[in-house]
């Protein structure tokens, strides 16, 4: 089994490196990919980073060709191992110095470096070492042990698919979809149909009361609570009648059951409380607004 794995490692690794190498060397979006990698910072230039990425692709292609064409020679296997160690070092460096940067590993994925990238680079090292020990060319091995070869290739391919985040659309998302269908939606509504505070704030912020109080309100929501059938929303503000600015607390009270869906016309209580005396201020917030008569609906 060990010799079968070694002999077939050349085929697996060859196909893998041919794929990733070709996408790096000839991919149309490589320039964009390179821009997100740590290479840009190291080389101080996006164009040079793109060149390095394309050159890496070319090296991968050369190693792949060696692995596939002359599998029993040691050189391609050793070259693949060196390549894998290089990838690991690069990933480790990028992870430490620029964790947000993209890996550029497969030239399709521009996400940040994850454990999957490390596993894939690790597999290149292991695969390279195995390939260096190949004694029989892979096509002879496959003909000699067809069943075992197919099984080995199937399992290895499955492992590669699982660790390639590019391929999630192929299996992971459909798997999750199927699970939702079989087990039902995990977020079905419970008994809690209370209106969230965010919905009350949303209702408030589309009300005339909010517009009228806008010159006074300075903060975001500071506190909220319910009492006597109302939901109270507390803000901080500055009331400035004729230059005598004073800090105030602005309290809005809304119906805790209402949302934008249930009313377009919420009743809102507005109170200004002087922070220094804790006394409510008598202010006509609507004084600057024209009186509005509602138009009859046709």
């Amino acid at each position, binding site marked *: 089994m060990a010799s079968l794995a070694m002999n077939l490692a050349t085929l697996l690794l060859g196909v893998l490196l041919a794929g990733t190498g070709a996408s790096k060397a000839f991919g149309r979006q490589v320039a964009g990919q390179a821009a997100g990698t740590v290479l840009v910072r190291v080389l101080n230039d996006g164009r040079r980073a793109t060149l390095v990425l394309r050159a890496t692709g070319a090296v991968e292609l050369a190693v792949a060709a060696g692995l596939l064409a002359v599998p029993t020679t040691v050189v391609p296997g050793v070259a693949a191992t060196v390549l894998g160690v290089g990838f690991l070092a690069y990933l480790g460096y990028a992870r430490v110095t620029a964790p947000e940067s993209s890996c550029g590993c497969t030239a399709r*994925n*521009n*996400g940040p470096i*994850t454990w999957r990238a490390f596993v894939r680079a690790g597999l290149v090292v292991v695969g390279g070492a195995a390939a260096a020990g190949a004694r029989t060319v892979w096509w002879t091995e496959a003909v000699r042990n067809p069943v075992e070869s197919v099984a080995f290739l199937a399992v290895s391919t499955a492992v590669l698919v699982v660790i390639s985040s590019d391929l*999630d659309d192929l299996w992971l*998302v459909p798997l*999750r*979809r199927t699970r*939702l269908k079989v087990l039902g939606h*995990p*977020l*079905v509504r419970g008994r*809690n149909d*209370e209106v*969230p*505070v*965010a*919905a009350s704030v949303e*209702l408030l*912020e*589309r*009300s*005339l009361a*909010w*517009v009228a109080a806008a*010159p006074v309100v*300075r*903060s*975001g*929501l*500071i*506190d*909220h*609570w319910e009492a*006597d059938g*109302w939901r*109270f929303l*507390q803000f*901080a*503000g500055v009331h400035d009648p004729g230059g005598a*600015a004073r800090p105030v*607390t602005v*309290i809005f*009270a809304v119906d805790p059951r209402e*949302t*934008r*869906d*249930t009313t*377009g*016309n*919420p009743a*809102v*209580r*507005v*109170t200004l409380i002087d922070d220094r005396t804790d*006394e*409510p201020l008598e202010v*006509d*917030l609507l004084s600057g607004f024209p009186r*509005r008569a509602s138009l009859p609906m046709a």
Partner: protein
Amino acid sequence: MTARNGVNRRRLLTSAALGGATIVGASALGGLDADSAFAAPMPSLDPAVSQSSFVDGRVSRIKGSVLDVVEADGTHRLIQLTNATSVWKLETVTAEAIEVGDGLYARGVEMPDGSVAADAVWVNIVNLYVTVRGIERSRLHLSHDSHALVGNIVEKRTTASFRGGALTSDLSQLRIGHHAQVLGAWRPADDSVDIARISVGH
């Protein structure tokens, strides 16, 4: 819960509000609260109110009620929190919830010494366009610019809006494949996002 938000203070404010409040009916315009963190700075219509300033960066040090914030270009800005500062970190919280390392977005008034007296502070706030790639009881798998992201569902905090409807805690209409806008709080510890609001079909 600090003294200013204590139960006694609430009782006082409640009775004052129910006593002599102006009741305003009818709807008009307005902005959304956490959204306003992303709104372009709008000059105040009131000439007495000075122009707001905005600070965006990471908290590098907390000394009492003063935050030392480092902006993207390395500039240090001091943010003064007061009793009248609102603090948002997935929900309305007090200043104690702010930690070193948090991302911070503040709106306030620039003081003569160059510090900013904050009116409102949003901590770790993120606004992302995502695709839903998986739904679990306590989290969503999302993809953003083709990289994977976990969105945590926080009980009583996470809300959703479907096709322009009001915010609801009912997330059962979410489907895999939905394109959505997520407003939430980034968790620096594991790089996931606690979802405050997910809007679908806008």
